[in-house]
């Protein structure tokens, strides 16, 4: 019983700190990439407490549900957006052994992919219950995008699972060898790009598209519920980065991984998160048709080709 409490507590702490760290990094990195300074006041030293201040501000705001909104659905949607990432974090291993993972299970990859896919339900709930045409447009775009990108996302993950011969996330890391970086490179790229689209990060933020859809499915949200959606986005970055690291970048493997393996996982996760932020700053948003074209004409064929390659190497080697 105590063991369960400790594990859950650890995951919750990670869930509350890592997204904030990524969010703060995004503030500062994006600012400097644009020749600005970013937050400088909150917390007195280079605005380190900016997100805490934001949180306090969001809590103080009025919690509004539109008159025509479907209230229960409208109010529960942000929670459903946030929860999958919390659950997914439960199964991502920091290091080898049973103690550096929230809950070690044999089909970790399957569960994580299934749970992350729940995000689309939250988006559709938020969009449809808002009684706002912009929300609905954003939600339908999100649905089209998430359903499309789910396919290359899962296929790329399937490739590495096939290569490792297991669905267990620690098992995949254990089976990982450095030359997989080359062998699974297409799958990694596909997984990363599809992951970006899954969490609706720019350049795949067509469902939010603030210049044309106000703020997509989040238009009608205020206060804490809006903050939940934002937190879900950053938690999504953490989960997608951590998954990329565990599946394709060798997780805790690195020099001295006997002692500081968990540190390697964290460092790699933050490196991938940095790339997520970098890509956001560098690229413009994809148009809706370009988005679907990239998914169906590039990512799906590439991931299918990778699958064939993986199978061939597995059978021949």
């Amino acid at each position, binding site marked *: 019983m105590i063991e369960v409490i400790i594990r859950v507590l650890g995951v919750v702490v990670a869930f509350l700190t890592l997204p904030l760290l990524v969010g703060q990094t995004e503030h500062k990195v994006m600012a400097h*990439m644009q*020749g600005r300074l970013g937050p400088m006041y909150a917390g007195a030293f280079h605005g380190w407490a900016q997100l805490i201040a934001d949180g306090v501000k969001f809590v103080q705001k009025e919690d509004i549900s539109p008159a025509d909104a479907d209230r229960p659905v409208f109010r529960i949607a942000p929670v459903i957006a946030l929860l999958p990432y919390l659950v997914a974090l439960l199964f991502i291993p920091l290091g080898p052994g049973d103690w550096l993972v929230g809950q070690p299970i044999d089909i970790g990859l399957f569960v994580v992919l299934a749970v992350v896919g729940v995000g689309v339900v939250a988006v559709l709930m938020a969009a449809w219950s808002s009684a706002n045409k912009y929300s609905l447009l954003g939600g339908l775009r999100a649905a089209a995008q998430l359903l499309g990108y789910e396919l290359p996302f899962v296929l790329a993950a399937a490739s590495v699972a096939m290569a490792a011969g297991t669905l267990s996330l620690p098992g995949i890391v254990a089976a990982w060898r450095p030359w997989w970086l080359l062998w699974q490179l297409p799958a990694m790229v596909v997984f990363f790009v599809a992951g970006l689209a899954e969490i609706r990060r720019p350049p795949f933020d067509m469902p939010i598209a603030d210049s044309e859809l106000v703020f997509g499915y989040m238009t009608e949200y205020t206060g804490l519920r809006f903050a939940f959606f934002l937190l879900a986005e950053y938690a999504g970055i953490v989960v997608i980065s951590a998954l990329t690291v565990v599946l394709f970048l060798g997780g805790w493997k690195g020099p001295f991984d006997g002692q500081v393996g968990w540190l390697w996982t964290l460092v790699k996760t933050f490196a991938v998160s940095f790339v997520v932020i970098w890509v956001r700053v560098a*690229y413009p948003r994809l148009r809706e048709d370009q988005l679907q074209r990239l998914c169906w004409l590039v990512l799906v064929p590439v991931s299918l080709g990778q699958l064939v390659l993986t199978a061939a190497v597995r059978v021949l080697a």
Partner: protein
Amino acid sequence: MEGIPGSGLAKGLAVTAKTMAHRAHTRQYPDVEPDLPPRSRGVIALFEENCTVCMLCARECPDWCIYIDSHKEEVVVPGAARPRQRNVLDRFAIDFSLCMYCGICIEACPFDALYWSPEFEYAEYDIRDLLHEKDRLREWMWTVPPPPAHDPMGEPAKEETTAARKAAR
């Protein structure tokens, strides 16, 4: 370079990375005073002692934001046939909510009674408080910087050349 597919994507990443490696140009204004260029136009100062109430500034002002009131006083000069008349300034006010900082009043003043000051932090909560009366305008005078030195490579002023020519003759 142009022909390679994906080179544009790489260039985009390179630009942002390069910008991140450089220092930001942001000036932390309320914490750090800005270093303003010479002859900055912040506020107009009145050197009251020089003013003769000739009203040229008020007439030239394009948006009529200078208000001047005055009266005449007789000054008895010993030995003179009759007393002289002198203008005494009662009110001199500039409404900075109307002023467009063209500086025509300063150019027009024949007695050097108006000056540019670089001070700019006189925002108010009430627009009526932007009407600066003459004592406030006089206070700005203390913030007027000495005129910048002449450009060493520039040609000398017309007055200087004529004076030199006269002296040579």
